[in-house]
């Protein structure tokens, strides 16, 4: 069975036919054994410099030009040259075909690992996870980037680089607030609307009772209140997608500036699912590459030596240092994701009583891949952890929850640990760390003073006392005011509507406003 003739490659060298063989072997396992459903693959072999290039433009193969990418490139190049930073083995792009970049320095084993990881693991996740399906258009993204690049360049020609740069700087500053967090309201078509109106009328007629007319109502709303409400409705307020609001409602933007805001907004939206699924995405890819590599080894397609090389890389990837380890820098999404995927496999195939109690739906069903595929399709990090972090894994990782209240003088309280009383609380808190609702500041456009000085009013709802950094906030608001071209105010209020801080900024004159 372990004929050397069956080997995909010998030693560390590879060439393009080898990559093809590796891909085909991986694909066979991915389809037959794991039942993965992937976009067509495109594998691109690149150099270290090109990898750095890709890093600096958020991994995308083509991107519009902007100085901040140059800044990141210079920074990363410096740290790479100093040896402070290694480069990733691969970058994978959520597009159709799914593009994976492979570094030319990788050994044959590493290329196998990377193909299994990116071209099948990530690829399957991109194609099947509901967030990606909902928010990204894998077929269109490369064309859109191409368009964006061309459009930005064209704007620079027409309107001057400085004007475009100012707009892009402002848009970038607001990028994290240019995302629709909820699927948009579907535009109702007129026929359905008419039908609904008819149904409503029928319902009113059927439940008509003259008695209701005599029930006293509250004091009538004054016309002022009504007009405020009407204005806010017309402007679509409150609106947490600040870039969208500016694009649609900023009074003095040029059409091309609106289009630039739109481009930045779309790209931010494209990356939105990735930030919500780091643990799952890496967990999926790591689990898939582990299964594929193990299988290749069992079939004798890779040698023992190559398999050991793989195991070493794999172990490095899924290493999770303890909190008091100098290497600790938060949870390693590879480690957590992979551990949870393996844990699910264990629960499905050989559960114990605790698992049966905690996970009655999946414990012992035996269909590992079926369960995993549905998990990969229907969850994001927050819900995944809430649902599937098992007590056994919490014990293994020895998780504990710290509560740091600045008002508490005695210090930081250990709120829960990995014991019977703590499992649910630890799990809830860990899930919250991955909840986008908590990660990003909750800032909304609440109103515009149309009758007065056209001031744009924003509100930051402070959660758990975390206020905005003042210096940065002023800078961002300055950008915002430049786009809005009238004053902008931001109030920070706590949950009881008490105003904690207020910022007001006036616009600078923009080059483009002339």
């Amino acid at each position, binding site marked *: 069975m372990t004929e050397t003739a069956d080997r995909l490659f010998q030693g560390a060298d590879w060439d393009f036919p080898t990559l*093809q063989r590796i*891909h*085909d072997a991986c*694909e066979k396992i991915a389809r037959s054994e794991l039942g993965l459903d992937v976009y*067509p*693959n*495109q*594998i691109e*072999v690149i150099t270290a*410099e090109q990898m750095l*290039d890709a890093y*600096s433009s958020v991994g995308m193969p083509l991107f519009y*030009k*902007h*100085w*901040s*990418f*140059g*800044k990141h*490139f*210079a920074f990363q*190049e410096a740290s790479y040259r100093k040896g402070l930073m290694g480069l990733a083995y691969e970058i994978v792009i959520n597009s159709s*075909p799914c593009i994976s*970049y492979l570094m030319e320095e990788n050994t044959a084993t590493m290329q196998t690992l990377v193909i299994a990881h990116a071209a099948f693991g990530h690829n399957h996740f991109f194609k099947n996870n509901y967030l990606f399906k909902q928010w990204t258009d894998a077929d269109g993204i490369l064309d859109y980037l191409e368009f964006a690049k061309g459009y930005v360049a064209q704007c620079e020609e027409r309107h001057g680089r400085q004007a475009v740069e100012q707009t892009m700087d402002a848009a*970038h500053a607001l990028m*994290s607030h240019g995302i629709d967090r909820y699927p948009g309201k579907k535009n109702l078509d007129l026929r359905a609307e008419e039908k609904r109106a008819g149904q409503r009328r029928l319902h009113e007629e059927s439940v008509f009772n003259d008695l209701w007319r005599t029930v006293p109502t509250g004091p009538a709303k004054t016309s002022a209140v009504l007009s405020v409400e009407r204005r806010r409705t017309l402007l679509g307020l409150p609106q947490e997608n600040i870039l969208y609001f500016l694009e649609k409602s900023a009074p003095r933007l040029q059409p091309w500036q609106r289009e630039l805001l739109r481009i930045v907004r779309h790209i931010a939206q494209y990356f939105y699912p990735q930030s919500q699924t780091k643990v799952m995405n890496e967990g999926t890819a790591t689990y898939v590459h582990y299964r594929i590599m193990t299988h290749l080894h069992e079939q004798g397609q890779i040698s023992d030596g190559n398999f050991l090389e793989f195991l070493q890389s794999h172990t490095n990837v899924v290493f999770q240092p*303890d*909190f*008091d*380890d100098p290497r600790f*820098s938060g949870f390693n999404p590879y480690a957590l994701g992979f551990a949870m995927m393996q844990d699910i496999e264990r629960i499905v195939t050989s559960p114990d009583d605790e698992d049966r109690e905690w996970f009655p739906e999946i414990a012992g069903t035996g269909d590992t891949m079926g369960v995993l595929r549905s998990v990969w399709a229907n969850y994001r990090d927050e819900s995944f952890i809430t649902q599937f972090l098992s007590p056994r894994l919490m014990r293994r*990782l*020895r998780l*504990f*929850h*710290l*509560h*740091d209240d*600045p008002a508490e003088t*005695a*210090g*930081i309280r*250990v*709120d829960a*640990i990995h014991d019977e*009383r703590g499992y649910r609380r630890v799990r809830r*808190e860990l899930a*919250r760390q991955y909840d986008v609702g908590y990660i990003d*500041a909750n800032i909304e456009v609440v109103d515009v003073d149309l009758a007065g000085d056209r001031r744009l009013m924003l509100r*930051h709802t402070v959660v*758990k*006392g*975390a*206020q*905005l*950094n003042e210096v*940065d*906030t002023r*800078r*961002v608001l300055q950008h915002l005011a430049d786009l809005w071209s009238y004053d902008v105010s931001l109030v920070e209020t706590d949950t009881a509507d008490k105003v904690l801080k207020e910022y007001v900024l006036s616009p600078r004159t923009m080059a483009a406003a002339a």
Partner: protein
Amino acid sequence: MAIHIVDRRLNPGSKSLENRQRFLRRAKALVQGAVKKSSQDRDIKDVLEGGEISIPLDGMDEPRFRREGGTRDMVLPGNKKFIEGDMLPRPSQGGGKGSGPGEGDSEDAFRFVLSRDEFVDLFLDDLELPDLAKRKLAEAESEGIQRAGYATSGSPANISISRTVSRAMARRVALRRPRPEAIAELEAEAETCDEARRAELLAEIETLKAKARRIPFIDPIDIRYRRFESVPKPVAQAVMFCLMDVSGSMSEHMKDLAKRFYMLLYVFLKRRYRHVEIVFIRHTDRAEEVDEDTFFHGPASGGTLVSSALQAMHDIVRSRFRPADWNIYAAQASDGDNMTSDSPVTGHLLTDMILPVCQFFAYLEVGEAANYTFDMPDSSLWTLYERLRAEGAPLSMRKVSERSEIFPVFHDLFQRRGKHERAAP
């Protein structure tokens, strides 16, 4: 299923070059400051080697809404001994956040590597050739000759044989000029065949020969001449004269100052001109052209006659560097001593011979470090040059006594100016 494997390694590199340039342009003021600062610490030789610089992050920030403070909750792995309800002392403020998942604020300075070209560009960016009256010479263009296709007329020397012959052949083929081989073949056949056939053949041969005569092998209309056009060619070479007083009164320190100035000038010229030559002329009471090593280190002693150096420069210019072909730059370094009797000669040489052919003439008066140079009365040479300048001679002059002053002085001399503003003393 289809899979594409693409080799991107051969794609043109530095895809992000433009982004980098944008970044540098944007951070120009900061980067320039950093370049100047880092160049002060280096040897001039290494100044232009590029290398790592650091700029404050502050000017290049990309602000975002960031939150800080407040109540924090975190879940961490690797519990060893904690149980629920334990109170842990907060890590001291100086010690950082300890185990907390800090925001990851990086260092407050941003370090990156500049290439040699980028470094030189930034280093010399706001400098420009001086705005002198003779400025047009700097842009002077000489006529050059360049091939420009073919013409139907021209000098016989310019006949393009290949073009002419190929046109002739085309014409012969088109007009069906009988080939000599064909005629020879017919003639050979006529030798051997019978009478009737021979008469026929002879008639045919005659027609062919007549046709061949009518259609010449080379016709005047075939002839083509190589055409030349004269194009203006910018003068892309410069010569730099380094004049230095090496009499006993010049110390090593003074020579070092002069050397630094020459180097900067060389680098600056090198950036503008494709080809830069350097001529070293040292003088005491006699002047001689020497190589670089002798220039800076060779021993010499004697009196001081500045005019000798100017005369030597003038001779060299006349014999080797035609002002029409060369951009001439000169930098003179001296401690200012000169024989009083020499002044009229020096003044005459300078205003009448040297300055009219020079793009730029700089005089650098070097002094001892921490000397009270500026309180002392002006030296004889300084007084002379000052007078010439006042009379309108396009001279640039500065006094230097410290190593660190060299760059500012250089910078000052070549600073980009308004159109009509002249170099101020």
